């Protein structure tokens, strides 16, 4: 294979790396024989879902697997020197100077109690680089290099005073401070908005161009597609497929890689199934034409928002308008996607639609009747008409309750006269969302992330609503689980004639799910239209910018190869 490079030129060589955790008797293998090599100036992407062992692999390269880990390998060499059997002192000399390490979510990856500049200078100080004065100058230089404006000021600020993008840049600055030949970036863009993500990726690309090798750990194939020379796909501690990025992404050989690629919702995937799982068995026939509400003989939207405004007074006494004149309509059986970056007012809009937050202006009509404008007392009986699925299902369940109890609580009062009927209904709900009978008695903590979200969907379905508000329902899920949940939502819509107000920051997911799309920025509606209008011919610059920043697999593999 072409990637078999001359060993003498290898910057990093890993052969049969195995990592296990726990005491000898209960040892749990997490990485089971991983091998790869990396030449100077190249970028290797290790891709996998959570628990695949990709992060542990990365950490074992700098000896940071933790106290109870057992690491072994046939070979583990950096710059021709074996790292096996390295003592603490040796590792410390390597870290920072030989290998720079960038973690995800810079707010918790930087010490929040220390100024950013001190964190960046720390590596310099530890490796006895320069004097206090020269280090200070170097910090400013580094911040400038990673594109941080006003570097002197930023160096004195605390992490929480910086935006997420600036923090991630600062973290990269700390990693490249000593010009290490290798940078390992573990999910460097996961918590970032798409536009910021693009900037950070650009920055890493620049670093690479200067000759630094890069190991990029990610769950996001699209991110990888843009950067990597070579991709290794990991599953359950093993590399299932490895090769040049163009090969692997365009012509995956392994079924798992293929499934992963298929699961990514994108502009191309609309109307297709993302997961290999069959449709829910209960949903045999398509729904009868959704019973749309009627007013004055005319069909009206199930949800109709006009001129919504919401302001909050911050702790500093300044009032901010989080939702600014937002109007939309959601027709029966339709999905309205709401997309926007963090702080754009998506969630507040969802809460107003649910009448959990009182708007300061405007109102929402539900099935043609006043909804937010009436007192809670009068809303209560109608609440069963609108359901909700949250991003974090775990916190939306009372931790003491079993699945059955959670669903029982959601059944409409008086709807099912006998206990047997209620139980039967719960069985039906579980079946609809693809859960087993045995899950009834589990508590939320005992379920996996995908299962929890299914319970959340079942709960939303229980009162037989016409509308479900989905607030980032798949953001916390791995891509394959995400695919299953998205497919489930699609199936349910088809079977039950539901309307979705679907909120997400993920443009791919939004395009995949939505009939129409609402783009929010700073609380205002930037653009509204059908999904294809928005995605293929955006009119507003903000939308265009957003789409341009989206790392995507959409580009033809041939183009990619040219870039590589």
């Amino acid at each position, binding site marked *: 294979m072409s990637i078999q490079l001359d060993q003498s030129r290898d910057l990093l060589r890993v052969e049969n790396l195995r990592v296990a955790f726990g005491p000898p008797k209960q040892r749990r293998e997490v990485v089971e024989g991983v091998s790869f090599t990396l030449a100077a100036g190249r970028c290797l992407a290790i891709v996998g879902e959570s628990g695949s062992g990709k992060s542990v692999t990365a950490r074992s390269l700098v000896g940071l697997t933790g106290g109870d880990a057992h690491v072994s390998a046939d070979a583990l060499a950096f710059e021709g020197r074996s790292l096996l059997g390295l003592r603490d002192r040796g590792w410390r000399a390597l870290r920072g100077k030989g290998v720079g390490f960038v973690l995800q979510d810079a707010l918790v990856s930087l010490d*929040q109690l220390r100024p950013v500049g001190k964190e960046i200078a720390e590596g310099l100080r530890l490796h006895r680089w320069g004097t206090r004065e020269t280090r200070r100058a170097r910090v400013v230089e580094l911040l400038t290099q990673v594109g941080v404006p006003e570097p002197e000021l930023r160096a004195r600020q605390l992490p929480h005073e910086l935006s997420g993008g600036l923090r991630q840049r600062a973290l990269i600055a700390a990693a490249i401070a000593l010009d290490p030949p290798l940078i390992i970036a573990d999910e460097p863009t996961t918590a970032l908005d798409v536009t910021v993500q693009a900037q950070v990726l650009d920055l890493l690309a620049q670093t690479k161009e200067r000759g630094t090798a890069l190991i990029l750990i990610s769950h996001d194939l699209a991110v990888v597609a843009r950067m990597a020379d070579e991709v290794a796909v990991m599953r359950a501690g093993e590399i299932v497929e490895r090769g040049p990025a163009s090969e692997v992404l365009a012509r995956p050989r392994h079924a798992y890689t293929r499934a992963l690629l298929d699961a990514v919702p994108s502009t191309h995937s609309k109307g297709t199934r993302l997961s290999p799982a069959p449709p829910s068995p209960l949903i045999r026939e398509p729904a009868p034409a959704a019973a749309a509400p009627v007013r004055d003989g005319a069909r009206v939207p199930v949800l109709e928002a006009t001129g919504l405004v919401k302001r909050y007074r911050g702790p500093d006494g300044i009032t901010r308008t989080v939702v600014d004149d937002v109007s939309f309509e959601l027709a029966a059986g339709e999905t309205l996607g709401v997309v926007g970056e963090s702080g754009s007012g998506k969630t507040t809009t969802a809460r107003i639609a649910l009448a959990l937050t009182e708007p300061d202006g405007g109102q929402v009509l539900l099935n043609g009747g006043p909804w937010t404008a009436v007192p809670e007392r009068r809303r209560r009986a109608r609440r069963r008409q609108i359901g909700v699925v949250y991003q974090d299902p775990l916190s939306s369940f009372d931790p003491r309750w079993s699945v059955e109890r959670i669903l029982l609580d959601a059944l409409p009062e008086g709807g099912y006269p006998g206990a047997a009927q209620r139980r039967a209904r719960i069985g039906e709900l579980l079946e609809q969302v693809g859960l087993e009978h045995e899950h009834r008695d589990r508590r939320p903590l005992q379920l996996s992330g995908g299962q929890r979200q299914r319970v959340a969907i079942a709960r939303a379905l229980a009162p037989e609503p016409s509308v479900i508000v989905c607030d980032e329902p798949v953001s916390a899920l791995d891509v394959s689980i995400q695919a299953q949940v998205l497919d489930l939502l699609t199936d349910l819509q088809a079977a039950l004639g539901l309307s979705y107000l679907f909120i997400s920051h993920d443009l791919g997911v939004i395009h995949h799910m939505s009939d129409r799309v609402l783009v929010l920025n700073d609380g205002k509606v930037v653009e509204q239209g059908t999904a294809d209008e928005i995605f293929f011919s955006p009119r507003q610059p903000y939308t265009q910018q957003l789409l341009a920043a989206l790392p995507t697999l959409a580009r033809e593999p041939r183009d990619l190869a040219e870039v590589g």
Partner: protein
Amino acid sequence: MSARGVAVRLLGAIGVLWAAATFTFFVQTLLPGDRATLILNQESGQTIKRTASELAPINAKYGFDDSIVGQYLHYLGGLARGDLGSSYQLHEPVARIIGDQIGPTIVLTVTALLFAWAISLVLTIATAKRGRVRSTLGSGFETIAAGLPHYWLGVVLLVVFAIDLKWFPVEGETSLSGLVLPALTLGIPLAGFIGQVTRDEFEKVLDQPFVTSARARGMGDLGVRTRHALRHAVLPGITLSGWALGALFSGAVIVESVFARPGIGQVLVSAANARDIPLVSGVVMLLAFVYVVANLLVDLAYTVVDPRMRTA
């Protein structure tokens, strides 16, 4: 802090002081038993019932013949002028008595607090997440220390280190060596409490990504513990210290009695026993004041350790 914040805080503090004074005044005034009799009998070491003619001059002198409300208003009026009144029993202005006694108590409690912090920090740094045996030893010590009653610990330390080993003075000395045992007596249980929250936070912090970041820059274990984790780990302990100061004053009452140290604790016990209302109220006000100040200091310390508080 904004001007409004300061004003709210000040009002709150005055409210606490007023409520403390009022509560104490009424509790003490409404006790059964005649105050004038108490004063007379204590001076003569008798327990007899006094005749009206004996009581009259005392009642007149202290204003006991006034109505309760009248006495209360009189007392509040005095407070407003900064006059805490005069002790019934000691025949001295309350402010002077407290002024004389507060010094040793503050020295004791502050030293105890420092001891507690020193013990818990050293213990945390040395044992937290350092293998099963070490951390079990460390947290085991903390649990035991937190359950040690002051009086018992005090007596044990006194007998072993002062009476038997003669390493420290037995009683009363305000010298440095005389401070060690009482401050340890107060400080060890507190070290247990602070150690528990510090250790917990410390272990949490050691799992945080920024610690991994620091290690990935080449920082050693001790560096991570002292330069990064420690600062985070002391935050809950600092909050605790505000509460602890109250507990330390409670403990001081006992420790001062065990070690025959001068201080506000002894004054308080004897004043409460003698129902010396102005003095008890004065001490209560003082403690309420200490509480208010302690909480301000805690906020301040928090701000020093956690710079986010300054900018948030």
